[in-house]
């Protein structure tokens, strides 16, 4: 017993070094696995406070660009107003039914909420940014985040009371369903962790005539991202002889360096869609089991 104590006393520094390393590494790997874990919680609130203080000052340096982006977005929305359109057929006229119930009533699928980026990083291989809206404001995991000019920025991965952590497109774990605007062919966007100025688009078949400068939008194969939002433009076409698919380098239209005002977009039918997906999977599995 005495020897054990002597051993501990002799190698006390080394043992504490190993213990601290194990603690740090276990935090690191656990967090990577579950994406959010214990870490976001109180810590998020504290760093969030400091980050928003800093952000109050930093805002002034980006006001001009931000204004231009918002103005452009407003412009595009203005052109969608009902008042801009008129019926050509003068023979028809609108009759208002006495029962005011519109059977062709639209159901809302996507709901946008505004938020503000308080801290941002683009230097690492796994980049995240923090926004100043959290669970109290109705932010949930997996919501899409869109920049103020309507280009895709990322996806919520962690929520605390008043802040949320967003996984940027510039993150090696990101995959986003995407489609070519011209042909509506679906592929997926990834990031290789190298240049923050280029994303990679895969799975676009070679039968598609892709040209440099073509627009890439968010695709339909996603529960999180609303389809039809701009991701970027094709910057380079890499010929991959071994497959029938293109590898396209895409220049993102969002400027990740100065994200300021963003929109968080909620898919109101996400749960239903996911539940249906799971139920189908279960049924198929059961069928397969019975067949065996």
């Amino acid at each position: 017993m005495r020897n054990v104590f002597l051993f501990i006393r002799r190698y006390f520094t080394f043992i504490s070094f190993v213990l601290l390393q194990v603690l740090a590494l276990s935090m690191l790997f656990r967090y990577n696995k579950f994406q959010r874990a214990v870490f976001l919680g109180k810590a998020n609130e504290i760093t969030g406070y400091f980050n928003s203080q800093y952000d109050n000052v930093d805002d002034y340096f980006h006001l001009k660009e931000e204004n231009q982006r918002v103005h452009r977005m407003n412009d595009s929305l203005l052109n969608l107003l009902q008042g801009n359109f008129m019926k050509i057929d003068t023979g028809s006229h609108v009759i208002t039914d006495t029962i005011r119930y519109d059977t062709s009533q639209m159901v809302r699928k996507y709901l946008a909420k505004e938020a503000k980026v308080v801290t941002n990083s683009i230097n690492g291989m796994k980049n995240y940014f923090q926004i100043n809206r959290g669970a109290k404001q109705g932010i949930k995991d997996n919501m899409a985040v869109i920049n103020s000019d309507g280009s895709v920025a990322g996806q919520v991965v962690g929520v605390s009371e008043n802040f949320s952590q967003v996984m940027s497109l510039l993150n090696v774990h990101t995959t986003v369903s995407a489609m070519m605007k011209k042909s509506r062919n679906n592929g997926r966007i990834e990031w290789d962790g190298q240049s923050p100025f280029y994303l990679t688009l895969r799975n676009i078949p070679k039968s598609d005539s892709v040209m440099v400068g073509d627009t890439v939008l968010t695709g339909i194969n996603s529960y999180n991202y609303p389809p039809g939002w701009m991701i970027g433009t094709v910057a380079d076409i890499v010929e991959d002889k071994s497959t029938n698919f293109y590898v396209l380098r895409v220049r993102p239209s969002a400027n990740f360096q100065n994200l300021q005002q963003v929109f968080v977009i909620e898919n109101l039918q996400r749960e239903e869609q996911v539940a249906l997906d799971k139920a189908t999977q279960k049924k198929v599995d059961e069928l397969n089991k019975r067949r065996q």
Partner: protein
Amino acid sequence: MNDVVRNVFRFIFFIVLQIYVLDNVPPLHRYIIPMIYYLFILWLPFSISRFWLLIIGFLTGLSYDYFTVTPGLHAAACVLIAYFRPFIVNILIPKDTSEFNYSEPSAKAMGWAPYAVYVLILSVFHHGYILLLELLDVGNFLDFLIKVVSTTAISVLLIFTAEILFPRRLKYRTNTA
């Protein structure tokens, strides 16, 4: 100023500098990642015990991690350099304590060449370890090598710039304390 108070201020200063200035530098190139916050550990007094050095290193790394959302990554690297710091200091400073009476590592205290070696070795350890952990997760080996060299070069450049631009008023170690 009291040693403790001074180091607390230094700690806050380095973390804030790293998060709000260096991490916000526009991307010049993907290999250029400026890092200086761990200079806090390099500048801690000689007299600090090895155990407390480890604890302080861990807390420094962890508080930076809270802002970068990489729990444990920088903490692990800081604990590593905090562990190896006393060994390297022992090799580099003169054994005769009557000649050597500065309280913390600096170019003036250790001489330029030993100080450069001290900074270089610990920078390589710090960046090498962080990038190795990143390599295990994602990335390729050539990238890893280039990044270790480039980030170390940038950090050493920053540290020496700081050393030349802001000379610290060095306190002497006395026997009375």
